[in-house]
């Protein structure tokens, strides 16, 4: 089984910890001039998202986690899983609710998502940085008010609620930044 020595630790490295795949966020080498060296690491459990701190004796080895991030296209939901397709191999994989997390509100068919696979199974997903959504409900637009000041809530076709400028109307398409949930611009068809 593949393993990493603490000397190879760096942020982004995927390791197994208590049976779960984890990603190293931070690694600090701590060593008294005379005495035992340690690696103090912050790791994120990729299944639960929980961040924990752990100390290793330097030189020890840890099992590597077979975790890869893959760009995949979202196809459909069958009531149990959300199916993504690899654009080259056309392989389809289903992600469960846990792997989708609270990203579902950004999910649109045919969008390219990052799917994190552990031993080939999706364990986490993340949406593209920007998505284009259609507004299904909002207060009537105020024509001519392009100041951008104020704003109002708008419900989108995916269920996401985004704060938009006053001039935006039902049926219009908008670009949204999924990292902060903020409106970016209107999109012309």
């Amino acid at each position, binding site marked *: 089984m593949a393993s990493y020595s603490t*000397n*190879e630790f*760096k942020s982004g490295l995927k390791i197994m910890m208590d049976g779960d795949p984890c990603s190293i966020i931070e690694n*600090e*080498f*701590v*060593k*008294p*001039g*005379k*005495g*035992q*060296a*340690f690696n*103090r690491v912050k790791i994120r459990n990729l299944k639960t998202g929980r961040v*924990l*701190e*752990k*100390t*290793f*004796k*330097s*030189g*020890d080895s840890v099992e590597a986690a077979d975790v890869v991030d893959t760009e995949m296209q979202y196809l459909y939901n069958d009531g149990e899983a959300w199916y993504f397709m690899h654009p080259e191999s056309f392989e389809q994989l289903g992600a469960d609710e846990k792997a989708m997390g609270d990203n579902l509100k950004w999910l649109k068919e045919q969008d390219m998502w990052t799917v994190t696979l552990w031993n080939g199974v999706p364990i986490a997903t993340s949406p593209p940085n920007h998505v284009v959504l259609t507004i299904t409900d909002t207060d009537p637009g105020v024509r001519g008010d392009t100041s951008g000041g104020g704003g109002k809530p708008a419900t989108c076709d995916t269920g996401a609620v985004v704060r938009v400028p006053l001039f935006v109307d039902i049926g219009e398409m908008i670009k949204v930044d999924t990292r902060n949930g903020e409106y970016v611009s209107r999109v012309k068809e």
Partner: protein
Amino acid sequence: MSGPANYRPSAGLVTLQIRARIRKQIRAFFDPRGVLEVETPVLAQAGVTDPHIDSMKSCWSKHAGDIYLQTSPEYAMKRLLAAGSGSIYQMSKVFRYGERGRHHHPEFTMLEWYRVGFDHHQLMLEVDSLVRKLLLDHLTLNPSCFWTYREVWKQTIDLDPLKSTLAQLQAFVEEQGIDISGLEDDIAGWQQLIMTHCVEPRLPQDTPVFIYDFPACQAALAKIRDEDLPVAERFELYINGMELANGFHELTDADEQRKRFQAELLKRKAMGKPEMPVDEHLLAALPFVPDCAGVALGLDRLIMLVIGAQRIDEVLSFVVDEPR
């Protein structure tokens, strides 16, 4: 090489000028005190047996045996002391396998000096005056603290390092929420874990903290003083949570030193590390080494304090490439 080629230095040019000035100030400090500047070989005939310090091996001729990049100039300087050099100092490059981090680089500069006739208390005072002189214009320092290892534990975590059993130390670590795996049942290792994780972060800021009289199991090359609870006449200096210097009232008993080397070799073996040849030249010199105290100070870390750097890379002209 990782990343594209880049000829630029790691440290800024102003930092390199500060480094040059500090080296000058160090010489100006020692010269009037009659401490002789010396140079000893970087290529050492023997490495170190210390189980927690790994030497880098090299060779100078295919007919000669292994040679090691020095991890410290200590052994060679003690041979000079034995030959009657009197008090000596040097600034030299030292090398430690596998040590890389925010405060570590596998090659770094050490200021090491020995004072004949000093004990560790007298040497601590000299270290204090040198460090204060070098940091004078850069850091406003509070009066220095001089605490025994036992006092500093009492002050910061209210635990007795000399009387606590291994089980008590382990219970404390668990209580502190420290998740550690793979540490052997060796009391020194657990003391060091608590020191680095619990004590160091609680030391006062902008204050030179001298910690002396270490647990005897962490004696290294220091004399052990027999009291009810024996302690090693060793000290460390910390400033802003960073270990800056380590000194000893030097052990000069060759038989005791040989025993410590052998105990370290046994430990190396248990840890699955390569056996290291014992430095017989040093053992031959020890009976002639006068009573003295010696200290090693990390020059790069001192420069970090001067410029307020967070990483050692900010004070080194060039650093090793990160492994891929």
